[in-house]
């Protein structure tokens, strides 16, 4: 039973990952990534880490992907031009990826970690539930927890600074503006 769930989730995760890089339209790539994230959440549940699985679904598949969908809708998908400015890149890249996979597998499987071939030790029923993770976060890992909250604040402020409209920059080169931008700007001009 566990093996069946593992292979179904693994196929979902791998299929989602391949879908992300194979789809031409970025919107479909985002949808494929959502499939990938849900399959990974199932794998996390198999590894008895309930809190990480829940955070994966709520934070990633919920919040972050909605952000992606909004930006794809704003920027617009498609328009990806020819695939290879470097000659032969389409054939070299898979070779490099396969080499990386083989190298990673050799590095991990050859590491002589004896517990790798087991299912892991027996754990109590509360392993990885929110209470255990919360206790670790607030006791042993309090400093990283607070540092990550500051990092989140900095990222939010940085994104606002990056994406905010710049009035001065808009006035300098009016010829580069698209019709939609000019339409948006024109109602305010007569009032000013």
């Amino acid at each position, binding site marked *: 039973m566990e093996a069946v769930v593992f292979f179904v989730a693994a196929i979902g995760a791998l299929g989602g990952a391949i879908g*992300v*890089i194979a789809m031409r339209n970025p919107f479909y790539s985002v949808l494929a990534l959502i499939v990938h994230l849900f399959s*990974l959440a199932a*794998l996390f549940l198999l590894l008895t880490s309930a809190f990480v699985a829940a955070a994966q679904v709520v934070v990633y598949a919920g919040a972050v992907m909605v952000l992606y969908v909004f930006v794809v809708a704003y920027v617009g998908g498609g328009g990806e*031009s020819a695939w290879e400015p470097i000659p032969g890149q389409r054939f070299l890249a898979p070779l490099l990826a396969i080499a990386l996979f083989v190298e*990673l597998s050799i590095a991990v*499987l050859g590491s002589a970690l004896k517990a790798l071939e087991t299912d892991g030790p027996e754990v109590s029923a509360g392993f990885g539930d929110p209470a255990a993770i919360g206790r670790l976060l607030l006791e042993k890992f309090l400093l990283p927890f607070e540092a990550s909250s500051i*990092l*989140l604040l900095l*990222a939010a402020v940085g994104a606002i600074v990056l994406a905010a409209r710049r009035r001065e920059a808009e006035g300098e080169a009016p010829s580069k503006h698209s019709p939609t931008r000019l339409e948006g700007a024109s109602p305010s001009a007569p009032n000013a």
Partner: protein
Amino acid sequence: MNIEWYIVLSSLLFATGVLGILLRRSPMVILLCLELMLNAGNLALVAFSRMVGNEQGQVFAVIVMVIAACEVVVGLGLIVAIFRRRLPLNVDDLRELRG
């Protein structure tokens, strides 16, 4: 299931993310491939945490999720800024910093 399977799956997902970054041109898809690589790392962290029988690896995974969220927010802000300035959304055209 052996922990080995999870680790092999995780390296496969990581290699897929690298392949996407090497192949695709759109900065948005490259951000998605970065997500793939971070998630592969997360899977390895959680699998090793299960192997040791200790929850601290799961805390690492949660922190990695926070880092990924920050990276996405800043990256998407950059993409919106690039789009606003009417520059091409193609990493091969945005090469002025390459030297």
